[in-house]
């Protein structure tokens, strides 16, 4: 009860006398670091979106001058007409920015940092200074990647997967400095992720509040924990591969150059050995946060908590043994291909467990369709479509037909935009009050949700059809092929929908900035949730708690018959609750 009493009169946990620089720039406070990640990665999300818009212009209206394209230099778009060598840079950098600098830091950088200490009940991360380094190496990586757009030869040109030998040899790609900057930036991203992950893992294992047992952890924390393990073990492999790529580029080694005995396929194996766990780094945190939000919005305990945890673990484990399914067309022993196919198909099982559990949670719940809940439900729906198209391409014979077509583009955007980004559109307004003390505007949030949902589907669903028709993935001008000319109206339709989708995001950004100053003050617990973070003032103070709270139950006790209100916070002690052993030990 002490924590409930303490939060009735919100006071900062301890006097905060740090200078502005220590507080907001080189901060070691996990919440500030989370917010730093939020601002920087939202900026990169915008950059990635702008690059995509240019691609869509070229695909919808090939060879026509792009409105506003006149500002681009002659080397990119003379007279506003996008050049092929600029188009391949757009493809490469859109993927790179969205994967490494938008979705991954938005999910892991922002929410692992912000939520883990708040949700497990501790004052800060286990290693606050390492945490700060994690942000600043990410920031440096972002600057290098952004700068590479403006170097004379242009940015990297080998696609975000950087297949060798195109990426390894400058005479093949035509870009030199841009390629090298890509490698350096990715090495720094790897460093940032490793530093972050070791922090999250240590903090969750050792710094949980008294009473916060493993199976009382919210699913968001569970998923971030498993994600951290994936990041910890996958990113060093990417860093190692990027280092070898960089050496091929600058000191003349021959790792990936077949002309000198190296192996181009080796790059693909290393990249996808990292790349497939990376796919789950990009979706598991989204699943975890959506689980929290759906239970809250349904006012019911999450359906099948334990099976949700085991499904996360199973997905993460299977994620290590399926990388070959990205390489069915690269040349592979058919027996090996079959085993990759089977292991990939097995992932459908834990994924389906999660999907049915979300539906079971909502079933006959007292649904509150707030903006976070709407986006969370959209996540489930879109993830199902993306997941089902994933089963298509897991099957080797089907994949041979749709490999490197727009079917793949449709699939990956259904899981990364329809999945991860909708989860973020749920998570950002949901935890916004705890970051800034105010709520985002509900009405404009709903407008943004509905328009995004509609335009998103108009953009990406037709891509399945384009892909089935054989529309190639990274093609510059589809009209040069007779068999694709009948589909050009569909390309135009997708492009116009994409411009509207991008315009809709302006609503989100304006709402975000407007609410910082003008939003409705939120109070402690605007969503009537049970998590520990909602017992703190909004915004949460430096150091979080005066005394770490004591936990008496799991986070999903909604509509409990034990109390009159429909939620039961984790810190509230009922007469039947026993004091956890760790809490009494600490009192001595």
């Amino acid at each position, binding site marked *: 009860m002490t924590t409930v009493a303490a939060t009735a009169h919100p006071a900062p*946990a*301890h006097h905060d006398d740090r200078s502005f620089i220590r507080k907001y720039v080189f901060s070691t406070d996990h919440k500030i670091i989370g917010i730093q990640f939020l601002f920087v990665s939202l900026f990169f999300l915008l950059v990635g979106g702008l690059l995509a818009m240019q691609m869509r212009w070229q695909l919808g209206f090939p060879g026509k001058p792009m409105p506003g394209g006149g500002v681009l230099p002659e080397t990119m778009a003379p007279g506003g007409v996008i050049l092929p060598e600029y188009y391949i840079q757009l493809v490469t950098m859109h993927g790179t920015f969205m994967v490494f600098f938008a979705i991954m830091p938005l999910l892991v950088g922002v929410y692992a940092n912000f939520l883990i200490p708040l949700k497990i009940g*501790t*004052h800060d991360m*286990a*290693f606050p200074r*390492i945490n700060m380094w994690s942000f600043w190496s990410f920031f440096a990586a972002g600057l290098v990647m952004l700068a590479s757009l403006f170097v004379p030869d242009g940015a990297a040109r080998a696609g975000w997967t950087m297949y060798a030998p195109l990426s390894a040899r400058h005479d093949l790609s035509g870009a030199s400095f841009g390629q090298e900057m890509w490698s350096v930036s990715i090495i720094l991203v790897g460093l940032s992720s*490793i530093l972050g*992950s*070791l*922090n999250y*893992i*240590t903090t969750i*294992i*050792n*710094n*949980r*509040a*008294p*009473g*916060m*047992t493993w199976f009382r952890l919210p699913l968001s924390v569970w998923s971030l924990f498993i994600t951290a393990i994936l990041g*910890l*073990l*996958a*990113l*060093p*492999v990417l*860093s*190692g*591969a990027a*280092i*070898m790529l960089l*050496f091929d580029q600058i*000191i*003349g*080694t*021959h*790792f990936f150059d077949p002309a*000198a*005995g*190296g*192996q181009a396929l*080796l790059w693909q*194996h*290393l990249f996808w050995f990292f790349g497939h766990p990376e796919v789950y780094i990009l979706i598991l945190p989204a699943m975890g946060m959506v689980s929290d939000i759906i239970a809250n919005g349904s006012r019911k305990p999450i359906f099948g908590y334990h099976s949700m945890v085991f499904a996360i673990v199973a997905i993460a484990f299977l994620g290590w043994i399926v990388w070959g399914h990205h390489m069915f067309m690269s040349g592979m022993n058919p027996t090996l291909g079959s085993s990759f196919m089977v292991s990939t198909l097995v992932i459908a099982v834990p994924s389906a467990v999660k999907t049915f559990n979300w539906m079971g949670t909502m079933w006959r719940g007292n649904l509150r369709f707030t903006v976070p809940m709407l986006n969370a439900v959209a996540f489930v729906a879109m993830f199902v479509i993306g997941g089902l198209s994933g089963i298509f391409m897991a099957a080797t014979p089907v994949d041979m037909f749709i490999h490197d077509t727009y079917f793949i583009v449709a699939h990956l955007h259904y899981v990364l935009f329809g999945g991860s980004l909708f989860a973020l559109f749920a998570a950002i307004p949901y935890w916004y009050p705890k970051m800034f003390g105010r709520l985002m505007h509900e009405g404009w949030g709903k407008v943004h949700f509905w328009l995004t949902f509609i335009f998103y589907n108009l953009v990406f669903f037709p891509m399945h059809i384009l892909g089935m028709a054989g529309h190639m993935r990274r093609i510059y001008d589809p009209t040069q092929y007779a068999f694709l000319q009948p589909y050009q109206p569909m390309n135009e339709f997708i492009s116009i929908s994409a411009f509207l989708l991008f315009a809709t995001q302006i609503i989100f950004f304006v709402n975000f900035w407007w609410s910082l100053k003008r939003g409705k003050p939120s109070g402690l617990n605007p969503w009537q949730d049970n998590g520990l973070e909602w017992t703190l003032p909004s915004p949460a103070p430096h*150091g979080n708690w*005066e*005394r*770490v709270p004591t*936990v008496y139950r799991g986070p999903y006790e909604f509509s409990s018959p034990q109390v009159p209100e429909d939620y039961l916070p984790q810190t509230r002690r009922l007469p039947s609750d026993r004091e*956890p*052993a*760790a*809490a009494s*030990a*600490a009192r*001595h």
Partner: protein
Amino acid sequence: MTHAAATVDQMRPPYPAERGLDVYNTKLGMWVFLASEVMFFAALIGTYIILRFGAPGEWAKPGIVLNIKITAFNTFLLICSSVSMVKAYAAIQDGDPKKMRFWLLLTILGGATFVGIQVYEYIHLIEHGFVPSGVREGSELAELVAKGQLPAATMGLYGSTFFTMTGFHGFHVTCGVISMTYLYLTKALPGKYTKQSYGGIETVGLYWHFVDLVWIILFTIVYLI
């Protein structure tokens, strides 16, 4: 240090917490970090295995390009420095900071000498014409290639893998020497390590043993076979 309950301060770590692993945070963090290091070296060593087995021809025979004797001595030195690390750890566990300082200094010297010998080896190799891209034109080694004593087709891969793997190992040893020197100057010399508190020595020791272990693998696969 490990007895959380005995010295609880509400605002300083270790905070009162649910029982996790009975390992303090810095040590757990180091174990977790070493797991990622394993994956990093696995990527480099895996690459070496793939390239060597898939090489378009024979691999250079051991002992022609690389000087095994001097590196064997270097390996012995690094193993000895692991022993002296353990001695430093044991000394402070017994509550003898003077002995700990001696053994820690010896470890630092061992590590620094290792790096020094490696730098000497690199300079020597480059002089003889062994570079990351293979064999330099017109060098001593290029003559051996011309005579057929070294395989022309795989020297590029040999150079690529040798310099990358041993270079990154050397980088790790350098980082270890720097951290140990830092701890020696800021903690060991001012007498901040006691029988009750020696987390830094234990943690840097874990790292040091890991780096040593990696070298034993690298020495075997790069120099001996």
